[in-house]
């Protein structure tokens, strides 16, 4: 009896010791929606980060021998709740956070992190943004404590309009978008940049619709058709994009769609055949970009998480860069990590990337691709089991999408 008690005590002590070493982890709080209408997007991101931390960092020696771990905090997509979750993460000792879904939540978090760091200089927090693309985040609102690993709307539009500049088939462009900041910005940059690069191209129409409220896009398609547009530029994402493309196919609209977010998170599945040869996207990566090891990573990921498809290349890049910065700085202090990240050049799977010091915006290669039938050659892999995949039309090196910044950064 006594023996077993002693054994048990030893066991408990042992667990505590192991627990103690597990405590010495580098933890990053993932603050994104994990329940509610945007849960699918948030979940895909979290699983991506966990997988990336495991495969790309922890199995390769970790961070100075410690493990990197991502822990989910559900902000339910709300800017206010993001701040509460930020506090919860800080309480639990997190010094690094990452977020991506929604520029509203990103603004809220940057604001909160700036204020927290100013008021608590001994417990600073660093914010890695992997998907919120509002250009102001690295311009007027830029912060030393914020790094963005996704190309912003302006850079993406620069890449797209550079592509349009060379494609002389484009004569008439119709802009359609969701009626909020992102849609407004896409419309604004399209007009500005096309006016400079292709003054001969006519903008034949511009429509904004409330986000997530349109069920039947047929009337919009009728309008696009009536305008005679050969190209549609849209910043739509999610169902607003899938429904738009489906309606276009139903009505037999021949125009091509330039999109930001057609590549993943359920959109390819929802578009299906209706997107064939009609939908173009600009991304930092897609399944048919040749890489060293992402092909295997993707296959393993898709097998491990049925129903979720690997989408976020930049999640891998970010995880590796953050790990590298910590290893170079030999520190997990947010300020030291931030300084090590600045100006970092890194050979990512999609090509060389560079974290610009002046505004903390990552410069990375971008690819313009079109949704095409899987043929085993240019389209080796299909997307989300649809039988259609992305075929690269043009690749843009990180130098060619750089845009000047108006950031005046306050450095600590």
């Amino acid at each position, binding site marked *: 009896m006594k023996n077993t008690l002693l054994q048990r005590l030893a066991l408990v002590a042992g667990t505590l010791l192991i627990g103690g070493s597990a405590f010495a982890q580098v933890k990053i709080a993932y603050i994104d929606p*994990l*329940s*509610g209408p945007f849960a699918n997007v948030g*979940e895909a991101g979290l*699983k991506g980060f*966990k997988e990336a931390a495991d495969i790309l960092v922890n199995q390769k020696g970790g961070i100075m021998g410690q493990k990197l771990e991502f822990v989910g*905090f*559900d902000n*339910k997509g*709300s*800017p*206010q*709740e993001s*701040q*509460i*979750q930020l*506090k*919860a993460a*800080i*309480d*639990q000792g997190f010094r690094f956070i990452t977020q991506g879904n*929604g*520029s*509203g939540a*990103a*603004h*809220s978090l940057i*604001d*909160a992190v700036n*204020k927290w760091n100013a*008021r608590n200089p001994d417990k600073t927090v660093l914010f890695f943004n992997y998907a919120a693309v*509002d250009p*102001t985040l690295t311009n007027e609102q830029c912060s030393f404590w914020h790094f963005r690993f996704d190309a912003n709307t302006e850079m993406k539009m620069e890449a797209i309009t550079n592509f349009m500049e060379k494609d002389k088939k484009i004569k008439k462009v119709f802009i359609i978008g969701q*009626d*909020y*900041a*992102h849609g*407004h910005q896409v419309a604004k940059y399209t007009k500005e940049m096309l006016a400079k690069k292709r003054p001969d191209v006519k903008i034949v129409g511009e429509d904004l619709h*409330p*986000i997530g*409220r349109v069920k039947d896009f047929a009337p919009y398609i009728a309008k696009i058709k009536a305008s005679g547009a050969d190209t549609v530029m849209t910043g739509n994402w999610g169902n607003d994009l899938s429904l738009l493309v489906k309606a276009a196919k139903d009505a037999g609209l021949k125009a091509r769609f330039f999109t930001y977010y057609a590549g993943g998170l359920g959109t390819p599945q929802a578009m299906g055949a209706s997107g064939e040869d009609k939908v173009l996207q600009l991304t930092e990566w897609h399944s048919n970009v040749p890489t060293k090891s992402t092909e295997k990573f993707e296959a393993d990921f898709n097998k*491990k*998480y*049925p129903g979720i498809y690997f989408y976020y290349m930049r999640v891998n890049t970010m995880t590796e860069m953050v790990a590298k910065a910590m290893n170079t700085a030999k520190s997990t202090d947010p300020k030291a990590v931030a300084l090590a990240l600045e100006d970092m050049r890194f050979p990512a799977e999609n090509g060389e990337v560079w974290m610009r010091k002046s505004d903390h915006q990552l410069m990375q290669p971008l690819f313009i691709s079109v949704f095409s039938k899987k043929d085993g050659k240019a389209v080796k892999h299909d997307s989300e089991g649809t039988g259609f995949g992305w075929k690269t039309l043009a690749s843009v090196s990180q130098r060619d999408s750089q845009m000047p910044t108006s950031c005046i950064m306050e450095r600590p």
Partner: protein
Amino acid sequence: MNSHVPQAVFRRGRLLLWGACLALAVALPLVFKSGFMLSLLCQIGIMVVFALSYNMLLGQTGLLSFGHAVYFGMGAFISMHTLNMIGKDGGPLVVALLPLVGGLAGLLAGVVLGWVTTKKAGTTFAMISLGIGELVAACALMFPGLFGGEGGVSGNRVVGKGSLLGFTWGPQVEMYGLIVAWAFVATVAMFALTQTPLGRMANAVRDNPERAEFVGYDTQRVRYLMLILSGLFAGVAGGLTALNYEIVTAETLNAHTSGVVLLMTFVGGIGFFYGPIIGAILVTVMQIVIGGMTQAWLLYFGLFFLFMVLMAPGGIASVIAMQRNLWQAGLFRRMVPHYLAVALPILVLLAGLVGLIEMTYALLAGEGVGAGDTATKVMGMQLQLSSMEPWAIALATTAVGVALTRWIGGRTSAAWNETLATLHGDRT
């Protein structure tokens, strides 16, 4: 029973209760020091004011609104714009008074929108509030100038150099103090309102509009006035939320926020003044704490809500009031053993159910599919979900819980009915 108790004692008891609540609110941050708890308490304070303002419509006037967030949101946006406008010229005193600006904005919104919505009561009011709520929410994204688009409008609550009695409102704990102060004032004011002729008239309009009209009250005007005042307090809550988070986004005035305040108020109990306070505390804690613990929180929340609607439609406050009646009649002691007896099987049932739900979530929406014999972490335990064992245990626990609850619960409800009969004087 209480009719012979002098009015003054009642008043003194009430004052004591108010004082105790205030003291508790002030003392809480001394016990819960972490930043997270403080944020949670701040959010609760704001929601208490918001839910109470909502109950001025639903509980007191009988108006079911699906668009109350409009007043909350308007208060928040106007407060934030005011904060940014005064900027450096302001000081901590001005900041402390900002919720009043929010209140005025809510009041103004009430004056404008209420004129349209309160013409009719009942279903018509419910639908028109839904329509206006949708309209305003849609407009919020169309007018980025006023509502700041997706990023919302942000500001800094620390303005000027000086301090007000040593407060700059920068640290969260000072903000908490400000919220408590405002919440207390607003709660007292809203309670006082229930005692005024207007408050009484609102009850009459709720219970029997024809008769109220017949004795000479303009029911439409009563509804209009109540909506305006409710807008005022919702606006105060909005102003507080603007100061607390230092950012206001379009989400504050959308249907989701309106839905949450409705749920809170109803769960707490619309028939009692303090019902919404309980509801606000409970629902906020559920959202944030349980939401942080389990992925399945929405499911729990939905089940809990349906349970409340079907089993205790008067809300938690009605359950408490019932116990209080028993206590005052000296019958509470009779029920205690029954409560204790039924608690155990209910706990067993809950344990089984939670186990099933958590395992289902872990299996279907969890950490991905490992190899056949990998253990999955569920509620801190390593379980092999591919084997029958954990499922059988959870299922058996649930079944035992159901059987026991039915058995003991049957006796409890028999005892309950008997006690009730005694209370109502049918038996002694």
